[in-house]
């Protein structure tokens, strides 16, 4: 569901490496070449790639939590099966991405431990509340839709195991998106109660969806290691604009109104007014839009969002209650294999 576009890590740019090897490496990746785990790579590349894959894996398994909580309340047999399968997919994505990170030198157990102690992060968007069934519909439509755009570009990156995993994940995400789109359309062609549920949930999720791609690009964005080494192939602002161009007209076509919202500390909307900047620029083909609330974004990233504590606590519960099982199944080899 999620992606690592907005992973904020401080990395060096390979200085200190053998200049000839570094130059050959950069020429190789810039020409579209792939890097495999046993190839030579700058230590900073390994470190950044590991953190990207780990952050992405963490996001998948934390992303499973808000949706997982609604499986038991899904309103019919088809939705119940589909939602279970979707959340199962997200856990599967986590499993695949942890494997990618493991190959770069960190054990799964160490990654799961760092996640529950707060040493590592997961995607910001999972720190928002899901108070109704319609929130589940919006996550599958908007957040999975955002993830597809982002991961579509990550699938053209430079690290072989990561991009092969991205391609496989993206095929499954396409199903998730269709599942989300179908649920949103069902609500918006339903009763007044359902339409209101959908609008309220859309108001909660539009902001986190456009913030999904991460903070504004920096002036030197293209020179930063993630872009220079082709781990990312599109900038945050490019992806955000692409997302709005696709989803603003799609949302309006269903009857949803795109609002600028104020929220309380629980992430619930206290005031919603139609976005005054929402307009198609005929020349560029771009839709104008009000930027997400960046103060809120940074507050949530720093751990002070509406659901940060709840999500980490549930992961910790899962880790701790399962420790005896891992010890039994892996015969005490949890440190190296799990």
């Amino acid at each position, binding site marked *: 569901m999620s992606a690592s576009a907005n992973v904020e890590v401080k990395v060096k740019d390979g200085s200190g490496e053998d200049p000839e090897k570094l130059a050959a490496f950069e020429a190789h990746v810039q020409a579209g070449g792939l890097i495999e785990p046993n190839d030579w790579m700058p230590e900073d590349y390994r470190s950044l790639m590991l953190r990207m894959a780990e952050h992405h894996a963490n996001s998948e398994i934390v992303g499973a939590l808000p949706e*997982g909580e609604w499986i038991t309340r*899904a*309103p*019919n047999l088809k939705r119940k099966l589909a939602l*279970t399968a979707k959340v199962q997919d997200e856990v599967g994505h986590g499993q695949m991405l942890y494997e990618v990170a493991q190959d770069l030198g960190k054990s799964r157990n160490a990654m799961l431990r760092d996640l529950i102690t707060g040493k590592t992060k997961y995607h910001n968007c999972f720190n928002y509340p899901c108070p109704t069934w319609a929130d589940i519909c919006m996550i599958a439509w908007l957040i999975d839709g955002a993830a597809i755009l982002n991961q579509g570009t990550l699938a053209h990156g430079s690290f072989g195991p990561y991009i092969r995993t991205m391609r496989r994940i993206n095929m499954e995400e396409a199903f998730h998106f269709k599942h989300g789109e179908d649920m949103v359309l069902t609500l918006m062609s*339903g009763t007044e109660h359902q339409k209101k549920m959908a609008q309220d949930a859309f108001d909660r999720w539009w902001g986190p969806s456009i913030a999904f791609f991460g903070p504004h690009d920096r002036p030197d964005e293209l020179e930063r290691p993630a872009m220079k080494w082709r781990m990312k192939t599109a900038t945050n602002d490019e992806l955000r604009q692409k997302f709005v161009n696709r989803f603003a007209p799609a949302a309006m076509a269903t009857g949803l109104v795109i609002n600028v919202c104020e929220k309380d500390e629980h992430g619930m909307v206290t005031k919603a007014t139609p976005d005054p900047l929402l307009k198609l620029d005929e020349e560029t083909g771009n839709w104008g839009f009000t930027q997400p609330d960046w103060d809120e974004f940074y507050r949530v990233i720093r751990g002070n969002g509406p659901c940060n504590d709840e999500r980490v606590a549930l992961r910790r519960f899962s880790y701790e209650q399962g420790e005896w099982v891992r*010890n039994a*199944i892996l015969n005490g080899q949890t440190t190296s294999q799990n």
Partner: protein
Amino acid sequence: MSTIDEATQQAVINLCLSIADDKLFLGHRNSNWTGIAPILEADIAFSSLAQDDIAHASALYELAGNLMDETADNIAFGRKPDAYLCSNIVTKDDQFDWANAIARQFYCSNFDLLRFERLSNSSWSELAALCKRLVVEQQIQVNHINDWVKQLATGTPESKERITNALNEYADAASSMFETPYGFDLLIEQDVVNVTEDIFDAWQARIAEQLSLVDISVDFENTASENEGGRSGVHSDDFADSLTELQAVYKEDPAASW
């Protein structure tokens, strides 16, 4: 079963619902583990078991729905509590203890396999055809869950103790599976249910065979015929909690399409 009278029809419906309700609530309970199971690979596998169980329930609701002139969804989500015919074991709270979840699934999966094997010979051809298909998937479930019991019983002293305790903890509740739904005798008379052996004895033998491989012994007592339980619509508080959750969104507007 070429012709069907009203009493037999109701008995057939009760039979389908009793199996489907077991499967629905078992899948419902197990889907709670999706996203938080102890190992990612186990999470994915357990989620598949939950999906199998809910899909089996759907197929049986469809079959019953044809006789009831009702949709599978309305049958699954829209009945009053005492119209559900699941056994008490499927809704018993597992307290998010993996040993409890495994013990419950071990008992239920083995029982369901026996039921499907038996109903594959039913004189009701539609039920027989469905059960022949479900037997194949159910056997995979049984292989998987039998293996889990073995793994936990041979893992560490702690895991052996935990799974042994859980198997004992769920032994009484397992008896609830053997209560028969109203009209069951009529189905035996008409070969809708083809009884060649006592299902409790057959189940107990299969369970004992698996447990003997890992030196675990559990005593079972079939008290189902002495008490009115889930198959008669008499349910526990744990069932009520599960049903409230199951119906939470559906009840917001039962006429709406979701």
